[in-house]
């Protein structure tokens, strides 16, 4: 495993999460100690062990591809922070 150093600023950018310099500093220290604790997993030999992504082995669960009732336009927009013309309003993306 990697060393218990973490570039909080870079990871926060990946997570699209604005942090204050104070938060960055505090998180860096706390995550250092948590990652230090997590290092103990390195003691275990997991050669030839299959990963478990999901505890119940179900495969290919599908349902019939049929039209069913869903949220109305109005209900889907009900909680929008900004809307107009029946759409979600977002900042300009293309010039």
């Amino acid at each position, binding site marked *: 495993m990697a060393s218990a150093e973490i570039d909080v600023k870079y990871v926060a950018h990946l997570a*699209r*999460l*604005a942090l204050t310099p104070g938060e960055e500093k505090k998180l860096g220290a706390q*995550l250092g100690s948590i990652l230090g604790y997590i290092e103990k997993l390195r003691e275990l030999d997991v050669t030839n062990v299959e*990963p478990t992504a999901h*505890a119940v082995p179900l495969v290919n669960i599908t349902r019939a591809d049929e039209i069913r009732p869903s949220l109305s336009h109005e209900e889907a927009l009900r*909680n929008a*922070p900004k809307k107009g013309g029946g759409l979600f309003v*977002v900042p300009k*993306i293309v010039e």
Partner: protein
Amino acid sequence: MLNQLTISELTAQLARREVSAREATQACLDQIARVDGKIHAFISHDPADALAQAEAADQAIAGGAIKPLLGVPIAIKDVLAVKNQPLNCASKILGNYISPYDATVIEKLKAAGAVVFGRLNMDEFAMGSSTENSAFGLTRNPWDTSRVPGGSSGGSAAAVAADECIASLGSDTGGSIRQPAAFCGCVGLKPTYGRISRYGLVAFASSLDQIGPFTKDVRDAATLLGVMSGADPRDSTSVPQPVPDYAAALTGNIRGMKLGLPKEYLIGGLDPEVKAAVDAAVEKFTELGAEVVEISLPHTDYAVATYYIIATAEASANLARFDGIRYGARVEGADPIELYSKTRGAGFGPEVKRRIILGTYVLSSGYHDAYYLHAQKVRTLIRNDFLKAFEQVDAIVTPTTPTAAFKAGEKSGDPLQMYLSDIFTISCNLAGICGLSVPCGFTKNPKLPIGLQLLGQPFGEESLLKLAHAYEQATAWHREKAGG
């Protein structure tokens, strides 16, 4: 007082027309008015809506309807969608969100006749063990208001312990039902992964989350489990396993059942009073005719570290949806990325930020295999420990928590210490098995509840309920009331 009744007691009285659902609901609302200023189990509740549902139930009863929860007031953790009610996950980021639909479990409760009311406090996005990480303030433990109710479903446990409702729902990702049930002295059940549909449960860690009940006794847990279980086309991880009549398992006869006592759970931090209570409970099981054997779960010591990789990784992906575009609060920005970052920076609290950063890091390029994939392999070893143990025993018995409820503020400055308080409950979610906490005693001074945890094999809820019920019948712990 009607608010103190169990589901089975209340439904019996309703069927005999001795009381009305309106009276029972009003009794809960009166208790909230009396004690919730101090306990703060509820973020909000709508008395008029609750009473309207109760009146509809009374009409149905008058018309001869028979349903398992008809007229029973049940309160809901603020992580489950109830149509036209607020949903905040105890976070600022959801703003004034109102659910446009019902979670599957809510549809099922309503179909069974329940009065579905209230939004119960929790750790923000179910991340925490004390309900101190709520943007809506602390919930207090009804047994000692200087102490936490546990978490993340602290409001669900406190509301049942303080008789502010007849039963409640919570969710459990690493112990978030069983640990607060233990701290508040009620019964809490985390069903097997896939037993109950997660549709309408706001996702924290999708491979670990399950919904479950908080109740005043084991029979009520069996009733709610029966109502909520079953496959759902809207959740592809719900399992098409038949739903047994759980109440039929409550025979009181556990003669010949085998219980396993894992030697790895005798850890240094185990409080002597908790240990003594669990030892006495094991003795009681032996008196009732069960056989107790020592077993080994050799990878126990790695569970907390494994959990904090897998749960945070899944959380970082799940919480990406809170971006200020389609719902919830928004902080404007010059471009979408700035809008996302500012919205999330302002909307999430410290523990959620900590877990998003950790989860993003363990999934990031160059670290994925070293952390996430490695943890998934250790998860296999942990699961195999349990499956091997269940070849030998019907259930595993442990303390639910190493100590009774701790004081507010005691662990909030040290995330790692807080994480380690979940040491006995976390493996259950990683293994995908079922677990239940039942009251098994009290500490002396102050008097605080102690929880006994029973762990069962996948879809082994009947064995857990049978054992817990027999134990409950032979003891009186569950009859003791907070503040009384």
